[in-house]
């Protein structure tokens, strides 16, 4: 988590986006001090629902940059992610993948490759970048917790992408669960030895398996109209000048100013 947070700091700085316009709905409880330091608005949602919550935030105020940080992405958050990608909602999804449910005693998640659990899980894990790419995400990348600089660079790039971007962050599980899940070496050491940077690799080939090297890098970078673009185009086409495009600030709103202050 530490490296993710420092990468978030650096990434936001690099992107040059005003931090007050950034909001982070997350199903992972951050330490409040960290959020304060980060200088963003933060919501903790139920497990996996950060993307759905973020969709409401983005639609309610299109000027926001929304960064859902999701731990439960492919289980409870699966459908939200799939549809977020399909409609290309402008969100930067940071998926923190440590292969286990940390809070409830190290049970394996659907992202765990076969060798990482006591009797070996027997289910195939998800390949997040491939799934994101096929659902229509405009940007997919994967970095381990050791690639702080690259992760920060990815975050700053993705913040300027128009559409759903997804960055998978391979994070270490705590040591206690390492024993339960029968991971022999230190997982960071494992990442260090096994991560190979392969930018622009076809996302179909980047599944994490116990026997092969972990491929990291930026896999997808494309352009597609976002949800709000399509919403505006469709309504303008039918309603012509009766329709005020969503996300533009009207004269009245400008005149009334900031009602909070």
């Amino acid at each position: 988590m530490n490296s993710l947070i420092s990468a978030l700091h650096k990434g936001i700085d690099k992107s040059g986006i005003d931090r007050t316009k950034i909001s982070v709905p997350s199903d992972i409880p951050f330490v409040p001090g960290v959020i304060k330091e980060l200088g963003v608005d933060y919501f903790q949602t139920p497990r996996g629902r950060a993307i759905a919550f973020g969709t409401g935030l983005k639609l309610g105020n299109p000027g926001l940059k929304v960064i859902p940080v999701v731990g439960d992405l492919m289980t409870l958050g699966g459908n939200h992610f799939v549809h977020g990608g399909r409609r290309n909602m402008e969100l930067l999804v940071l998926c923190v993948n440590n292969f286990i449910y940390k809070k409830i005693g190290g049970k394996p998640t659907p992202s765990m490759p076969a060798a990482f659990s006591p009797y070996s899980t027997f289910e195939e894990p998800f390949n997040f970048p491939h799934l994101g790419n096929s659902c229509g995400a405009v940007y997919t990348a994967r970095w381990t917790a050791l690639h702080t600089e690259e992760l920060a660079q990815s975050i700053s790039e993705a913040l300027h992408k128009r559409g759903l971007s997804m960055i998978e962050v391979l994070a270490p599980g705590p040591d206690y669960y390492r024993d339960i899940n029968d991971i022999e070496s230190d997982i960071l050491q494992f990442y260090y030895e096994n991560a190979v940077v392969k930018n622009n690799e076809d996302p179909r080939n980047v599944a994490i398996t116990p026997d092969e090297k972990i491929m990291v890098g930026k896999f997808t970078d494309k352009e597609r109209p976002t949800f709000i673009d399509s919403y505006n185009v469709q309504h303008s086409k039918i309603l012509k000048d009766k329709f005020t495009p969503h996300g533009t600030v009207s004269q009245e709103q400008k005149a009334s100013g900031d009602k909070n202050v």
Partner: protein
Amino acid sequence: MKTDPKGVLTGSHELSGNHACAEGAFAAGCRFLGCYPIVPALEISQRFLERAPAVGATFIQMEDEVSVLAAVLGASWTGKRSMTVTSGPGLSLMMEHLGLGVMLETPCVIVDVQMVGPGLGIPTRPSQGDMMQSRWGSHGDYEIVALAPSSPQEMFDFMIKAFNFSERYRIPVAVMSDEYVAHLVERVVIPPADAIELVPRRYYKGRKDNYLPFKRDKDFVPPMVDIGKGYRFHVTGLTHDNRGYPIMFEECQEYNVHPLVRKIRHFADEIVEVQESNLDDAEVILVSYGATSRAARKAMEEARKSGIKVGSLKLVTVWPFPEKRVAELAKRVKAFVVPEMNFGQIVLEVERCSYGAANVFFIPHGEKGVEYTEDIQAVIKRAVQEKNIKDGVIECVSKGV
């Protein structure tokens, strides 16, 4: 605060309950709808979608009802009045975020057009089977405001009430319609915009770096800010202190959750609304809400014609339940008769609040439609003749009355 005239369709219209609901929402300043299509609530979202561009409202059809309410809560934090419409199965899915909405104290409105349940039930028949779910469905302790309209006109009026309650108390408010009201077409009079009074959101006015998202004012309601204005706040669905930081001790549970309950219970007298008729000399009182109150009113008029002293207590707010009023009436009447389109939900509240002072008869009404009142008539007669006070709810099935 006066409402924005853009959303108000002033005049007299023939509207179905569902269409009146959408118009009520616009009149109440609602500018965001999250929805997932479901019969019998479909026409609300259709009407909303049709009119939204002209009014300047946004909508999204999400992937399921779980995400619908999540998106609605998110949109509400951006300062938009937000709502969702659904029916029984959708409401079941929304329970997770209803709890979150209560915990984050997020104003929003949930319209539930009730259909017959459980499970898949009958999507095209009316029911009042979700009344208890709206109150107790999510885990943990909370209080909610629920309104039950009985006509398209009330549907319109109650939407405005619902948004006002949600902003005043910072809670999700449920409008418990049903399939009968939803598809009933009646005349609805929409007043001019300057006659519609809205309760404005309570905004924090102090310095930006001093903002505490859950510091309560004297009404137990914390003032709110919009997201993205530089307040840099931290809110969590975990038990939290007034900074919005998670603190998971029993003391904090008391500090955090007790006010969620108290802010409604303490002001119950201000929220509770009932419509009373012929209560002065009544021996038997019909307690009803929503569509069944139409049958109850008819039954009361017919019974009055045959000389039985019957009164009517129609619940506008089902939650919080008008406990004091029912207890007061129980002391001076023989019996309450409660027709409901379910197998006994609000009748349990009536029985609880009558404290053994009056008989409580229950009629699982609605099998033959809301216009049918023979079963209510029969129970009224039985209630008048009953000499002793019996324990518990006396259930009267149509055949063996």
